[in-house]
Each structure stands twice: as C-alpha cells, then as structure tokens.
C-alpha cells in the first residue's frame, strides 16, 4: 500500500494505516505551503519538508472568525469599562451639579472624585493590560480553530476532485482534532469503497478478456462484436474510476 499524501508537511514518516492515525500527534507544519503540497508527490513533500519546516506560521488571519472574536473581546471590555464607570462616578457627578449643596460640600465631593480618579485609572490601565493579554490569548485559541478549518477546506476541495489519498494532520495544540480524525476516517472509508470498485472493475476486465479469448475459438462475429462493445463500456467505466485517486492507484 502506498503512503497516504498529506495536506501538511510532517517531520516523521507517515504511518501506513490511515485509519489508525491521530492528527494531534503530528509535528508543527506550514499552512502557507498547503495548497502547493497538495499537488506535489509524497517524495517531493518529504524532500521539501527539511527546508520549509522552519517556516511555521505562528500568527495569521486565515478566517473571518478571528476578526469577529477580536472585535467581540474589545467591545466586551469597553462595555465593562463604561458600565463600571457609570455607577462609580455618576453619584459624585450628580452631587457636583446639585445647586442645593454649598461650595464646601462640593469641594469635599470634588476631592472624592479626584481620589476615585486616582484609583480608577490605575485599575483601568491594569484592566487594559489584561484586555491586551486576553485578546492575544483568545486570538491564539481562535487561531487553533481557524487553522484546522483552513486546512480542512483545502482537503474538502481535494476530496471533491477525487483525491482520496489525502490525510489531514494538525499542529500540536490545534483544536478540532476529533473533526480532523473524522475527516481522515471518512476519506479512508471512501478510499476503501472506491478501491473495492476498482478491484471489481479489474476482475470484470479480466473476465471479459477471457470471454474474448473463448469467443475467438467459437468464431462468431456477432459475439465478438458484443464482447468488444462490453470491453469499450468497461474502458469508459475505468476512465470514470480513474478520476478517483486511491492508495491502490
């Protein structure tokens, strides 16, 4: 059995059994060269893996989900800042605007506002730092979702074109490992079904060949014509089957 083609570059040779693979245990890979490697032969992929392994993409916008997540976190944090500032400062501001209060009382309130300001803004700055860390961390989480999605999309396109030798592998720490494993399992099942059909087609071709030889001994031109027609139909069928690329050819 040939080794399955990979959607990604791996440092170690692939395991022969596609169904038994786990996507998560694979080493870091380069998503940028994904489409290129989908079209190259396994030997080319292995040869290039030595040179391109260092170019692992650590940070990239590969999915609109990442932008959505970032904007969501920033808007959440802004909401928190504004909604916390309202109950903290509003009563004091109202007191400052109150005409019934004397200037001495207003001075006390203003002093309170200044004190609170002195305390609130350090909090706001530290919360801002927490927000930046949150954004980076969340983007990292989403990147571990968006990366596999990007990779799976390429695999879907290849499967649609009939390439059933592909197996997707994810980077270490990537999420969606169960989905990648399911896609690999699905591809392996389709590959097995198509391989069985190819095998059956080869057997039918052999039998038609035998019938052709047996018919030649009889010397019936009508039979020879019909066998030839069957042979032609089988050749068309083989052409259709060859649009699928399986481990067996």
């Amino acid at each position, binding site marked *: 059995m040939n080794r399955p083609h990979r959607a990604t570059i791996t440092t170690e040779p692939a395991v022969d059994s596609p169904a038994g693979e786990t996507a998560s245990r694979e080493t870091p890979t380069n998503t940028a060269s994904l489409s290129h490697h989908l079209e190259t032969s396994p030997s080319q992929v292995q040869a290039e893996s030595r040179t391109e392994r260092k170019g692992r993409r650590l940070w990239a916008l590969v999915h609109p989900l990442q932008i959505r997540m970032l904007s969501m976190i920033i808007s*959440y944090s802004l909401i928190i800042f504004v909604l916390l500032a309202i109950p903290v400062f509003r009563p004091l501001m109202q007191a400052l605007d109150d005409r019934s209060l004397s200037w001495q009382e207003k001075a006390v309130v203003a002093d309170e506002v200044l004190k609170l300001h002195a305390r609130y803004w350090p909090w706001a700055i530290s919360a801002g730092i927490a*927000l930046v860390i949150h954004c980076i*961390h969340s983007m990292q*989480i989403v990147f571990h979702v968006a990366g596999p999605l990007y990779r799976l*999309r390429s695999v879907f396109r290849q499967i649609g074109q009939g390439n059933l030798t592909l197996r997707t592998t994810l980077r270490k720490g990537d999420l969606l490992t169960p989905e990648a494993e399911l896609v690999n399992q699905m591809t392996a099942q*389709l590959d097995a079904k198509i391989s069985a059909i190819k095998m059956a087609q080869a057997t039918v071709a052999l039998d*038609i060949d035998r019938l052709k030889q047996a018919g030649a001994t009889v010397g019936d031109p009508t039979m020879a014509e019909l066998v030839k027609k069957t042979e032609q139909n089988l050749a068309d*069928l083989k052409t259709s089957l060859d649009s699928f690329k399986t481990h067996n050819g």
Partner: protein
Amino acid sequence: MTGHYTRRQLFVHPVQYRFVVTTLMYFSCMLIALYGIVVLPMVQTLDDPSVTWQERAQAATQFLGFNARVWPWVLVTFLGLLLHSMYFMHRIAGPLDRFHALFQTIGAGNLYQRAKLREHDYLQREAGDVNAMLDQLEQKIESLNVHCANVTNASEDVALLIQGRSPSHVNATLLTLEEKVRQFNTSLDGFRLRAPQPPQDQQPLDFAAPIAMDSPATMKAA
C-alpha cells in the same frame, strides 16, 4: 445551506468550554484588579489605628455606598457578557457538531446528505465547501453508475446471444463474468445518491396528485 432548526443543548463541543473558561478567567482578573486598586484602599482606612472613629465611619459609609452601586452592575454586566459569549460560541460549535454527524454519514457512503446550518451560524464557507465536495463526489458516482449500467447491459446482450448455444467453456466464462458484474454492482451500491424511501405504509398520502388509472385497453396491451 441554511436551515430552520434550533438546538437546545447548551454545550455541544469542547471549544465552548475552553472559550467560556478563558472569558471567565480574564473577567475574574479584571475584578480582582478592580478590588485591589479601587476597593482595597477604602478597607485599609478602616484598619488604620491612627484614623479617628468619625473618619472610619465616613470611610465605612463610602465603602458600603460603593459596594451597593458597583456590584449589581458588575454582576449584571458579566452575566450578560457570559451569555453573549456562550451564544457566540454556539454559532461555531453548532456547525461543528453537524459536520461531525455529516462526516460519519459520508464515510458510510451516503452522498445525498448536505450540510445545513442555521441562518446566523458561522462556518458557512466550510459548509459550502463540504457541499461542493459532496456535489462533485455525487457527480462522479452518478457517472460510474451510468457506465456500470452500460457494462451490465452489454454483458447481458452477450449472455442472451451465447447462452446454451456455445461450448461449455464459453458458458462457464460467461457465468463467471455475470457473477463478477453482480459483485461490481454490489460494490457500487455502497454509495447511496438518494435518501432511502420510507416504507409504503409510512408514506404520506398525496391528495394533490391526480390518480393515474390505466385504461383497460392499455392494461390489455401491456
């Protein structure tokens, strides 16, 4: 690609747990920072022995007033944001859950299924790609079915011509061929391009469709 269905399960994918935990963790960090910087100085005044009891009473009133103002807002805000973040993640986890089921179905050879997501779900592009893949596979298998039918018909023509009239070794080869063609058809049947029809007694009655009755003449001719 979009369907009208709702899911009632709250957590359908591990990604949701991870995201909710992260959100809660960072919000807690913000709360701790708020407590440490804004609230703690008020409490420290209460513990200071050099401060008079009147000043302490004023600080305590301030602290209580601040607590009464801030915490309800904090709770409502965080609860609202948590619910929204869960809703957001559901729009990712829901499609992933559907893909999960779909991949298993495709692997079993059912190529008639399609990815249908809710209107506001994310991953619509991925659903489109899965559906395009299924369309292409379906087309290829349909083509195989057509060619297979041609091969079957041609081999039947050969069988009709030579059956019983040819030497025994030709007949034996023909029988083997018929068997192999049958096996080939069975292999191809592993792919289903149409949803299986429900049993006859479970099919809905179609009153709109006109009832086609064969005339006695047609039946006779048949």
